């Protein structure tokens, strides 16, 4: 009797990877999921930070998908290795700072390492030809298979019949006739297949699951690189870009101002790493100051923070400034009127 073949499925938490994995299960393949954590994943972060989102149902969609499928899910931290993808994408960026093609090549390459280490037979993804403008085009699907090193160990069950046969098909582990030929941007075939499998609740694709596809986030990341004169980032940098109002009044420093209590609590965790301002005379935000600034710039920073406090209409607002060494002192300033904040300061 031939042994049951094993496939590792790249699980993003969306509908396509859910369906691709189920198609394989229908053919008797043992499937386990892999979910890569890059640091830019939208999943859960802002919900965890912002108080107003706390009441929303919190669900990690990749875990939820795995539970629907009854498969194991291995969440893999690739934050450090992923930097090369973000900083120097061979195939360039998409509309924002999203290196989607390099990202997919990298993830499939990591999955290849994983299946070799774990004794799995092949890799599956939920890719659909023509679904996405950068990484899922007819011309780029072979690039993913080739440059990742996976070659014919990479099977895309939802569009396999549009592509050359892969090893699992040639070897008869998988019946090509029971795979699909989806193509294009329409979601109707996937929704019909979901209905066939009885999946009624699934994550709706809404601009992807990665902050790098977000225009606003990309502006802040590009600003960070420009301000530092060095195209690098650490985990804390990319976390802080997800939080607060970012205002850069001068090239050398910027303010990260909390917008509500949850963000204030989150930023408070960074008090020992950054100089910061809090309002004393009126309820108001916590603001971290990232960079170098002189006394005049500190005055301006204080006026900006005062503008976002409940004392914005007051003649004067008192703030406490704490420097990077923890030395605190008070400042009293006139809040900066909204019309005196140039648009280009706000990232």
């Amino acid at each position, binding site marked *: 009797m031939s042994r049951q073949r*094993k496939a590792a499925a790249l699980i993003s938490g969306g509908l396509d990877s859910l369906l691709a994995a189920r198609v394989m299960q229908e053919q008797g393949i*043992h499937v386990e999921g892999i*979910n890569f*954590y890059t640091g830019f*994943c939208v*999943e*859960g*972060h802002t*919900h*965890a*930070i912002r108080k107003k989102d*706390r009441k929303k149902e*919190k*669900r*990690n969609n*990749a*875990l*939820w998908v*795995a*539970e629907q499928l*009854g*498969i*194991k*899910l*291995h*969440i*893999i*931290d690739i934050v450090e290795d992923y930097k090369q993808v973000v900083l120097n994408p061979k195939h360039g960026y998409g509309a924002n700072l999203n290196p989607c093609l390099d990202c997919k090549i990298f993830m499939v390459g990591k999955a290849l390492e994983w299946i070799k280490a774990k004794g799995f037979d092949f890799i599956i993804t939920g890719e659909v030809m023509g679904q996405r403008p950068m990484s899922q085009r007819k011309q780029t699907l072979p690039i993913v298979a080739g440059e990742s090193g996976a070659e014919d160990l990479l099977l895309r069950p939802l569009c396999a019949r549009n592509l050359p046969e892969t090893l699992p098909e040639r070897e008869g582990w998988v019946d090509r006739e029971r795979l699909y030929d989806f193509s294009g941007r329409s979601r109707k075939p996937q929704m019909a297949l979901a209905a066939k499998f009885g999946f009624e609740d699934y994550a709706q694709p809404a601009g992807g699951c990665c902050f790098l596809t977000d225009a606003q986030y990309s502006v802040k990341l590009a600003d960070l690189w420009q301000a530092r004169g060095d195209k690098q980032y650490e985990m804390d940098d990319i*976390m802080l870009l997800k939080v607060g109002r970012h205002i850069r009044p001068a090239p050398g420093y910027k303010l990260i101002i909390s917008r509500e209590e949850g963000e204030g609590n989150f930023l408070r*965790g960074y008090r020992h790493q950054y100089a910061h301002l809090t309002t004393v005379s009126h309820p108001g935000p916590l603001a971290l100051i990232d960079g170098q600034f002189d006394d005049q710039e500190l005055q301006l920073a204080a006026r900006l923070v005062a503008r976002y406090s409940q004392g914005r209409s007051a003649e004067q607002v008192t703030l406490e400034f704490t420097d990077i060494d923890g030395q605190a002192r008070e400042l009293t300033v006139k809040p900066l009127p909204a019309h005196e904040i140039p648009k280009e300061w706000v990232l």
Partner: protein
Amino acid sequence: MNRQIVDCRRLLCPMPVIRVQSAVEDLAEGTVVEAVCTDPGALTDIPAWSRINGHRVVETRSEAGEYFVVVEVGPKDLS
């Protein structure tokens, strides 16, 4: 019984899950792991991860802005 504490404070999901996953990898069946978290998402994510990977959630609780998830390691994967 000895508990292995996994400090996940200040980590946002899914990092707490990844920390628990790493801790559990080298532990024998029946060992108890307690994750201490500040992201409330851990209260749903760690139990979900535990269920699908064959581990048992013994307890979840919240105290003073921290969230605790206690997991008993399940049988090793023989597949």
